[in-house]
């Protein structure tokens, strides 16, 4: 009897081992960490979302944040250059608004640190939205519907600060967890295929993770474009050209051609690439990065595998957008 009981308890012990969760990969040694789910206040998100789609934020009520950042597809537009109120093309490619809260800096040249500060950029720039805060606050104050929503969420009247807060907090809800790769990082080895895992290994061994790391797979510091082999001819660029990058802000020689390292989350959905949107395919941009940033020629096979890996960073569009959509359809 006793031995039988011992054997039973041993079997139960073995069975219980199968319930121990698989060891998480994000133990600090992986250069990329998964995105965690965000919690948010639904009322504030709806208000922020409505402001995000409100064309009154622009000078002639023709453009909203949403015009260039389509939050129901990829958080950007698929054009090389977006068009603002002046009907002229903007000089830089529009980055996605998804996961922008995970970036340590905003804009290609990183001139804003917080999302709140970032809003000033497009809102005031002449050929983007070309407006100013005084007008925007006044226009919104005249709409009792918006005013009552502000009252409901913040219990305070409309102000520049609160508009920024609402939009920024909406943007903070636009994170995309649950990508296949995040599942893989959390220990589900079957979440990505063998060749995708191989792509990830190559991504690390080629040195891509030197810059594209962290939760956002980039976005947390600056790097020179053309680090190993220069991309632009130093003398051919005019003063103040957008290709000078951060140099235009700091005027430091070391910041010439330096840009914010872009996030690679959802990268397969956000063509075209580079700050000027000049490259249209992922394959091309992988090889270009290898050549100019790492000094290696990435073979066709490896580029394909890396591209397959990058596809695992795609995630479903943020939950909060469906909340907003439901509200809008009401």
């Amino acid at each position, binding site marked *: 009897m006793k031995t039988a009981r011992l054997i039973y308890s041993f079997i139960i012990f073995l069975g219980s081992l199968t319930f121990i969760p698989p060891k998480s990969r994000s133990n600090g040694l992986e250069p990329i960490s998964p995105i965690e789910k965000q919690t948010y206040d639904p009322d504030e998100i709806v208000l922020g979302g409505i402001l995000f789609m409100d064309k009154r934020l622009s000078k002639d009520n023709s453009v909203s944040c949403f015009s260039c950042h389509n939050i129901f597809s990829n958080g950007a537009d698929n054009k090389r250059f977006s068009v603002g109120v002046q009907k002229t093309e903007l000089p830089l490619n529009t980055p996605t608004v998804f996961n922008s809260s995970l970036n340590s800096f905003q804009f290609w040249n990183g001139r804003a640190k917080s999302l709140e500060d970032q809003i000033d950029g497009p809102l005031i720039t002449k050929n983007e939205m070309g407006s100013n805060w005084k007008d925007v606050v006044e226009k919104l104050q005249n709409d009792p519907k918006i005013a009552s929503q502000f009252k409901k969420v913040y219990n305070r009247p409309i102000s520049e600060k609160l508009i920024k807060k609402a939009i920024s907090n909406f943007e903070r809800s636009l994170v995309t967890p649950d990508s296949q790769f995040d599942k893989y990082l959390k220990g589900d080895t079957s979440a990505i295929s063998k060749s995708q895992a191989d792509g990830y290994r190559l991504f690390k061994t080629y040195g891509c993770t030197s810059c594209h790391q962290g939760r956002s797979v980039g976005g*947390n*510091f600056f790097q020179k474009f053309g680090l*190993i082999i220069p991309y632009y001819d130093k003398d051919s660029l005019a003063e103040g050209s957008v290709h000078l990058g951060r140099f235009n802000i700091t005027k430091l020689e070391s910041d010439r051609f330096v840009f914010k390292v872009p996030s690679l989350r959802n990268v397969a959905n956000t063509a075209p690439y580079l700050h000027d949107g000049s490259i249209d395919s992922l394959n091309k941009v992988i090889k270009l990065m290898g050549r100019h940033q790492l*000094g290696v020629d990435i073979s066709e096979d490896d580029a394909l595998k890396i591209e397959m890996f990058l596809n695992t960073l795609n995630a479903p569009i943020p939950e909060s957008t469906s909340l907003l959509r439901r509200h809008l359809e009401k």
Partner: protein
Amino acid sequence: MKNRKLIYIAIASIVLLVLFTLYFHSTKDFKSNQLSHSKELVQNIHLNQKKIIKSILELMANKNNNFDELNHSVELTSNNCISLQKDQFLTANTKSQVDSICNKIDRQSQLAESFKSLSSSYFISIRYLQHKSELINYNNLMGATLSSSDKNTNFLLNSAFSYTIFLDEVAFLILSDFVKSSNIDNKKESLENSLLKSHIRNILHSRVKLIELQNEIESLTPSLEIKGLEKLIKVKTEEYLENQKSMKIAFMLIGLISLITTVFATLKASRLAELLIFANADLDQKVVDRTIELEESKKLILKQQEEIFASERLNAFGEMAAGIAHEINTPLCSINLANSFVKKFLSTQDSKYKDRAVKMSDQIDSTVERISVIISSLRKVARNGVGDEKEIVTLKEVVDDSINICRERLKNSSIDLRIDIDDNALLKIQSVNISQVLINLINNSYHAVQELDDSWIKIQSENIGNKIRIMIIDCGTGISKENLEKIFTPFFTTKAVGVGTGLGLSISRRILKDHNTDLNYQTYNGNTCFYFDLDLCDLLEIQLEKPA
């Protein structure tokens, strides 16, 4: 007059006390919150400084290559600094201290920025070398002979690795020689070689620079200032607590004064107030007494109600008593009659009556049989079935038990009893209770239609899904609207005094509630119809319950 003055003083001192208390608490919370907030901020800065150093060390060791932590710590430190600068407790001399901390941290975050770029490019170069060495080793493994340039490259790579890992000085010399030498014949260089050179140069340069940066960042840790500030906050807190002590004494003094004057004023207060207090107390007592009384009578009423419901069973039978007597009386009469005939035959022994006498004797037998059926039904139904287990019975059994008791009475009033039920419907019910419901309903119908011509009562069943609907319909023309609202209330009856108790329907309803159903009323083809639904029994369930 004197009393009034005292009262004024008492009121004034109480008001003073309240105001003082409010002020005391508001300042206390505000100040202590401020101090603990500043303390927290300083502690946070201290903690995040440690984190910055730790993550820089980790990055230096190439343990991981994730800047998130570093970024996060740097951001938190500068945010804490900004809040600290806004803090209220700052005076001129603490302000300079805080400012120097913030300046250092500002510079630190700038350095952290360059550290990140540099370490990433350092990492890229190391990766490049690794890549290169892998490629050469792979070729070697595949059997290709190494060219002299490959051998040279391999040698350089190995030196570079030993330099980055062990900081080998000889390796450093070899590498710097390589970087310098190739500078001379720059033009002839292949792209490969120039890349290798630039990467090695990058490693040499970055390694030194990174260590410099690391040292600088570490030296910028404002630990002295933080300690000073912590001390200052501590002193301030102590000062504040000291201050609180004297405040407390003043607080107690005022409290004492107000207490004494209040007591004095109360003592000297007029007799009227005293009377008023007594009157109030008396009133309070009365209210309490009345409440208790009310509670008790409520309990009594509830108890009585229970008792009434219990006795209703008996009442219902009392109501039926006449009917039951009749029920048994009629067959007894016929026995009597038959018996007298048999007696007559026995005394005369006339053979022409013989056949008839046998027939009569048979009739006595069958009548006795009938009486025993009635009595057994009565016994079944009269039993109090409140706590009965539910049992499985056919609908026919239940209906038969009920109508056995009233059949004769209905016949007597020449009421036609029509039965149209699904004989085989299986029910899991407290059969005695359901019989009582049926009897109640039949009784009601009987009372309603006995005066009418061509009267009839019909018991009908109808299958509705997995339920069966049992309907008791009579030839009456329905219940008036005003009565309809009241029929289910206990003690409501339209019957003559002494005929009904007015509890039948409410009790029936209660029984049906126990079977998760309800008694309903509707008009059915213009006639009065009471109906209720019962769950049909699942055959499978029965088979499971029956012992094999």
